[in-house]
C-alpha cells in the first residue's frame, strides 16, 4: 500500500511496478505519489454531500464545509492535514522585450499519524519538496531544480501565517500579520547558481475559494476533498538575476558578470490543503490557467483516462473581473506534439481549447502555444517527469488574448498508467 495515498492502492502498485523496473529509488516513488496528489488539485467534483467525518481512517483532518477561514492563519501550514502545497506560476517581463516564465512550488507531505519522538531540527513527521523553474524566451533556455528536505531547520511552513521555506527558497507574507484578503507576498527562488529571483506578488483580486461551502470535493468518498484557495491574479514585481554560465568559457564568465533585470508580470497561486485525493483510472492530466488581457481568468483541468477519453470529472472554470467563478463545458484538442529528448515523452506542443464565454454565451476557440517547446521538469527527485510551462493564448484569428500556464503529466513512457 502506498503510505501517502492508501486509497489509490491499485494505481500506486502499478506505478511502483513500472518504477521498480526502472530501478528508481523508493524516495522517488514517494514523490511520484506526492506529485500525483499535487497535480490533480484542480478537480471540482459535484457529488452528493455525504456525512463528512472529522478525520480520515488514518487520523488526518478532513476539510469541513462551512469552515471559517481566518487570515493570515489559513495561508499558513495545516499540519493536521496530510498533503498541502503552495503553487506559484507566472510570466515576467523586462526591458528590451525580455520575457520569462517561472514556476515556484512548495509541497508538504505528512507521515502517518503517531510515531516516535520527533526532533524539531531534524523532523520525521513531514517532508517538504519544492520545484523552481525559469524559462528565458530570448534564449529558449529552461532551467529547473528541485529540493527535498525533512521538516526542520531547512524546510518548514509556519502554522500562523504564510511562511514556507525549503533551503534558500521561500514564500512568505510581506507583513506576516496581514489580515487583508489581498496581502502582499514575497517569493525568493533560484535555480542552482544560474538564476535567482526575488518577487513581490500583490493580489489584483481577492482570494478565490473553490468548491461548495469552502470545500472542493474530489470524489464520492466523503473524505476526498480539499480546501482550495487561489490568488488567480497576482501582480509580480521584482528582480531577476541571470548568471553567465561558465561553461561557455572562463573568459566569458569574467567578462559578463551577473545580469540583473528589473521584472514585472502576472502570476497565479494555488494553496490547497487536503488529506485524501481522488483516485481513478487516469493516465495523467492536463491543467491550464489563463490570464486574459480583459482582466478575467480561466482554469481547467482534464483527467485523461487509460482509453484516451477525458474523465467526466474534468472541469473548466472562469473567474470574472470581480473574482466570481463560473463553470463551462470544454473540449481540448491536441494540434501538435513535441518529443522530449530527455525522457522520450511526446507532450502536446499546441492545443486548441473550445468553450463558452460566460459573458457572451458565445463559443470561443483558444489556441494554446508554449513559449518554448522544452519546459519539461525531468524530475530526478520527484521521479515523475512532467511538463509545466508558459504559453501564449490566441483566438482563432491569431489575436493574442493573454498568457497561460500549462501543466501536462503522464506523457513520459515511464509512467504508463
Amino acid at each position, binding site marked *: 500500500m502506498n503510505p501517502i495515498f492508501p486509497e489509490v492502492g491499485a494505481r500506486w502498485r502499478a506505478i511502483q511496478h513500472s518504477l521498480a523496473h526502472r530501478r528508481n529509488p523508493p524516495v522517488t516513488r514517494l514523490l511520484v505519489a506526492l506529485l500525483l496528489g499535487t497535480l490533480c488539485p484542480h478537480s471540482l467534483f459535484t457529488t452528493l454531500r455525504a456525512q463528512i467525518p472529522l478525520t480520515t481512517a488514518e487520523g488526518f483532518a478532513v476539510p469541513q464545509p462551512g469552515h471559517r477561514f481566518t487570515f493570515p492563519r489559513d495561508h499558513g501550514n495545516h499540519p493536521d492535514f496530510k498533503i498541502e502545497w503552495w503553487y506559484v506560476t507566472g510570466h515576467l517581463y523586462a526591458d528590451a522585450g525580455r520575457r520569462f516564465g517561472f514556476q515556484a512550488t512548495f509541497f508538504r507531505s505528512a507521515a*502517518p499519524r503517531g510515531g516516535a519522538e520527533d526532533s524539531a531540527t531534524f523532523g520525521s513527521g513531514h517532508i517538504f519538496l519544492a520545484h523552481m523553474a525559469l524559462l528565458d524566451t530570448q534564449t529558449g533556455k529552461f532551467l529547473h531544480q528541485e529540493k527535498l*528536505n*525533512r521538516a526542520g531547520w531547512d524546510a518548514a511552513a509556519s502554522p500562523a501565517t504564510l511562511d514556507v521555506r525549503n533551503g534558500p527558497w521561500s514564500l512568505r507574507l510581506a507583513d506576516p500579520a496581514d489580515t487583508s484578503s489581498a496581502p502582499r507576498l514575497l517569493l525568493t527562488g533560484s535555480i*542552482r*547558481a544560474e538564476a535567482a529571483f526575488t518577487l513581490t506578488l500583490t493580489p489584483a483580486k481577492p482570494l478565490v475559494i473553490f468548491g461548495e461551502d469552502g470545500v472542493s470535493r474530489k470524489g464520492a468518498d466523503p473524505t476526498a476533498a480539499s480546501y482550495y484557495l487561489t490568488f488567480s491574479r497576482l501582480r509580480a514585481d521584482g528582480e531577476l538575476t541571470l548568471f553567465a554560465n561558465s561553461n561557455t568559457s572562463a573568459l566569458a564568465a569574467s567578462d559578463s558578470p551577473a545580469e540583473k533585470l528589473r521584472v514585472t508580470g502576472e502570476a497565479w497561486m494555488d494553496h490547497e490543503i487536503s488529506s485524501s485525493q481522488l483516485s481513478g483510472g487516469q493516465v495523467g492530466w492536463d491543467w491550464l490557467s489563463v490570464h486574459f488581457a480583459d482582466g478575467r481568468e480561466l482554469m481547467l483541468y482534464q483527467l485523461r483516462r487509460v482509453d484516451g477519453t477525458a474523465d467526466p470529472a474534468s472541469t473548466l472554470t472562469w473567474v470574472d473581473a470581480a473574482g466570481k467563478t463560473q463553470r463551462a463545458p470544454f473540449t481540448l484538442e491536441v494540434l501538435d506534439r513535441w518529443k522530449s529528448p530527455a525522457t522520450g515523452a511526446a507532450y502536446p506542443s499546441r492545443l486548441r481549447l473550445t468553450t463558452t464565454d460566460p459573458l457572451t454565451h458565445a463559443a470561443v476557440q483558444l489556441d494554446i502555444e508554449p513559449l518554448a517547446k522544452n519546459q519539461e521538469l525531468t524530475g530526478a527527485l520527484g521521479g515523475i517527469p512532467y511538463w509545466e510551462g508558459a504559453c501564449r493564448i490566441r483566438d482563432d484569428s491569431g489575436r493574442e488574448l493573454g498568457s497561460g500556464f500549462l501543466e501536462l503529466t503522464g506523457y513520459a513512457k515511464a509512467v504508463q498508467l
Partner: protein
Amino acid sequence: MFALETLLLRRFALRHWRLAPRQSLLLVGILALGVAVFVAVRLANRAAVASFTHFTDTITGQSDWIIQPAAGTLPESVLPELRAALGPRPVHIFPVVESTAARVRRTDESAQFGRTTFTLLGVDLIAVANLARAHSANASYFGQPDGTDTRSDFWSAFRAGPQIWLSSTLATSLGSARTLDLVINEQLHALAIAGVIPTPKDAPRVPANLILLDLPQLQRLTGKLGRLDRVEFLIEPGPRADERRDELRALLEKLGTTSDGERWTVTSPGARRDTAATMTRAFRLNLTVLSLIALLVGLYLIFQALDGAVVRRRSEIAILRSLGVEERTIRRAWLAEAAVLGLLGGALGLLLGWAGAQFSVRAVGQTVNALYYATTVESAGLDTGEIALGLLLGLVASLLAGWWPAREAARTPPAQVLVRSASAAPGHGALRSAWLGVALIAAGIVCAQLPPLRFASGGRFPLAGYVAAFLWIFGGGVLCGFLLPAIARVTRRARESSAVARVALSHLAAPSGRHRLAVAALLCAIGMTAGMAILVASFETTVRGWVQRSLQADLYISSNGAQSASSQNRISPPVWRALAHDPAVAEASVLSAYPIELDRTPTIFTGADLRVVRARSDLSWVQAPLDDAVFDATRNATLALASESFCERFRKKRGDTVRVPTPAGPQTLTLAGVYADYGNERGSLLVERARLVAWFGDDYAANVSLFLRPGTDAESLRTALLARHPGLAIYTNAALRSEILRIFRQTFSITYALEVIGVAVAVIGLALTLISVLLDRREELTTLRALGFSHREIARATAVEGTAIAASAVTGGLLLSLALGWLLIYVINKQSFGWTLGFSLPWAQLAALAVTVVATGAAVSYAVGRWGADLPADREE
C-alpha cells in the same frame, strides 16, 4: 667494450656463485632484509596517512568548507542562523555528527589493542538526495528494492528508529546478519542493518569501518541531542564557483568571529587531511630512521661479504691482471657483480617488504589509532614509485658496499705478492685517526644540545638528536679500534708463555683495517641494542612507578568502546552517577575529557575533582604547584594543571597562562603545576571538573575511578556492576596495572626482536671478517702448520683473536650504549613525546648481552679457525 666485463662476470663471478650458492644467497638475503624493512615501514606510513579519511566525502562529495568549533560541539541553532545569513545563496548546508563505536569485547579478549573502532557518521539522509552526487548514485536510504514488499514503505523505513548503513566490505563480512551489536558510549546497542551505503562509481570507496546513520538517530544514540560536531558547506555547481566559494569562506569567518574569540574555525577537507599528515609526521620520521638503520646494517654485511670475496679470488684476479685485463675492467666487473646482487636483493626485498607491510600496516595503523586519529588502514599496495625506490635502494646500497672491495680487487698487482700489509688495509687512513673519533664525539655532544624540528599541529622531530646518535656511533667505532692493541698489550703481559696467544695477539697489536671495521660494526650493534634496552628499561621503570603512584583506586571504569585517543565513547551521567553512588563506594573520581584545538593544534582538556585527585592519588610532579590553591574548588577558578607533554608541545611552564577555547567562550588559565603523564602524546590540561562541565554543557564522563569502603571485595563488585552495565569495561586495580604493563611490553616487544637481530648480524659480521682475515693469511697458516701448530691450536689462536675483538667491541659498545641511552631518554624521547623518564640500567640484560656476544664471538671464531686451519696454501677456497 663491455664484452670483456660480461665475459668476466660469466666466467668468473658466476662460477663463484655456483661454487658457493649458499653464500651468495645469504648475501642477497641480507640485502633483501634491509630493503624489506625500509619498504614495509614506508608502506605502513603511507597507508597510515592515506587512511585519514574525511568520512563525509564518500557520502556527500567533497565539501567546500567545514566549520568546526575549537572545543566541544555546535548547537543546532547555528543552522537556521547560517541559512538566514547565507540568504538566497545557492549553498547546501550539511550538519554532521560523528562518533565512534566498537564491537563488543568478547570475555576471552583482554586486549584493548587491535579492536576495530568504527566511525559513526550522522548526516541528514533525506537532504543528501539534493546533491548531484546522490542523483548519480541513485541513492535511496529509506526503502528496499523490492517494490511489492510492504516494508519498502517510505515512512515506516524513514521512521523505523536507529538503523545503520554499512560499507560493502563490512556488509559482506557480516553475511546475512540483520543487526550489528555495537558499544556506543557505555550502552550496548543491537542496531538494525538497513543496507549498504550507496555510492556512484566516481566516488571514493567507502572506508570499511564507516557506519552511516540518519543524523537525529545518531544524536539520540550518542547523547548529543541538539548538538552538531561540525557543519559542511557545498556550493551549488554553476558559474563563478571560485568567487562564490571565496565569498562563502569570508562570510563564514565573519559569522564565526565574536568579540571574545572564535565560535568556530573554517577549514576545508584538504586542510583537515594535511593536519592529520603533519600530526603524525614526527612519528613517521622516527619509524623511517629506524628502518634506515636496518638498511645500514645490511650495507655493512654486504661490504664484509664482498671484501671476503675479493680476498678469496685475489689469485685469480692476479692471473687476469697478468693476462692484461685492465684495472678499470676488473673494477667494473666487480661493481657489476655488486649491482646484480643489489638488484636481486632489492627485488626480493620489495616482495618481503610488501609481505611484511601487510602486518606492519596494521601495527602502525593501531599506533596511529591509539595516539592520533581514527584510521581505516586495511592493506598496503606497492606503487611503481616504491618499486623503483626499493630496487634503487638495493642497487645503491650494494654499489656503496662494493666500491671499496672493487677498488681493492682492481689494485691487485699482476703477480700476487705474499705480503699481507699490501692488501689488508680497508678504509681510509683518516679512519684510523683517534682525532677523528674525538672530533665526531664532540660534534655529537653539540648536536645533542640542539632543539627539535617543530612542525605545524604540534609535531616535533629530534633531527639533531639522531645526528648526534650517528656521530657517536661513528666516533665510537673509530676510537674502538684503539682498544685492540691495548688488549693485546695487557693480555700479552698476562700470558707470556702461550704460543697460541702470542700468535693471536700479534695480529691485534697492529690491527688491520678489517679488524677495526669488525670491532666498529660489533660496537655499533651492541651500542644500539644496549642503548635501546636502556631506554625500554628506563621507560618501564618510570611507567611502573607512575602506575604505582597514580593508580590508587580499587576499580577503574570506562566505556567498553573506549580504546584509543580517537575513540569518543564515554559514560552517560545517569550511569556514572549510579556507579559513584553505589553503597560500596567510599569516593569516586570522575574524569571528563574533551578534545580541543589550541592554536590549531589538537590537545585534550580534562576535568576532575582536584581535591579527590590530591587526596586519593599521587600525581608525579615535574613542577609541583607552589601552594594548595589549585586543589581548592573555591580558589582554583583560573588555575589548571598541565601534563608534561602539553608543556613540551605548547612551550609552556608553571606560571604561564593559556587561553583555552570552550563553548562558553575562551578561558584564560594559569598553569599551577606540571605533572607527568605517559598516557598520551598530545598533552592534556586538567581543571576542576565542575567548571569544565559548565563550560561544555555536557556531563559525560570519560572514566570513573571508584575507591571502595573497607571490606568490600572489588572483584565481586566488578562482576555485579558489569551485570548491570554490560557496555562498561571495568578493571580492578591489579588488572589495570598489569594491563597497562602488558600493553607497554607489547608496544616494545619489537625492540627485543631488534636486539636479537642486532647481535646476530654483528656476530655474522665478525665471522665474515675472520674468514677474510684467515684467507688473507693462508701462507702464514701454512707456515704455522709447518712449525708444528695443530689444527686445534690454530683454531684456538683464531678464537683468541675473535674473542678479543668481541671483548673490545663489548667494552666500547656498553660505553656507547650509556651515551645512546642518555640521548634516547633525555633528547630523542623527550623531544618527540615530551615524557621525562628516569634513567635506569637493565644490569642483567646488559650483562647477558655482553656474555652472549663474547661467547658466541669466541665460538664462531673457533669454528672459523678450524675451517681456516685446513686451508691449502695456494688453491682457491
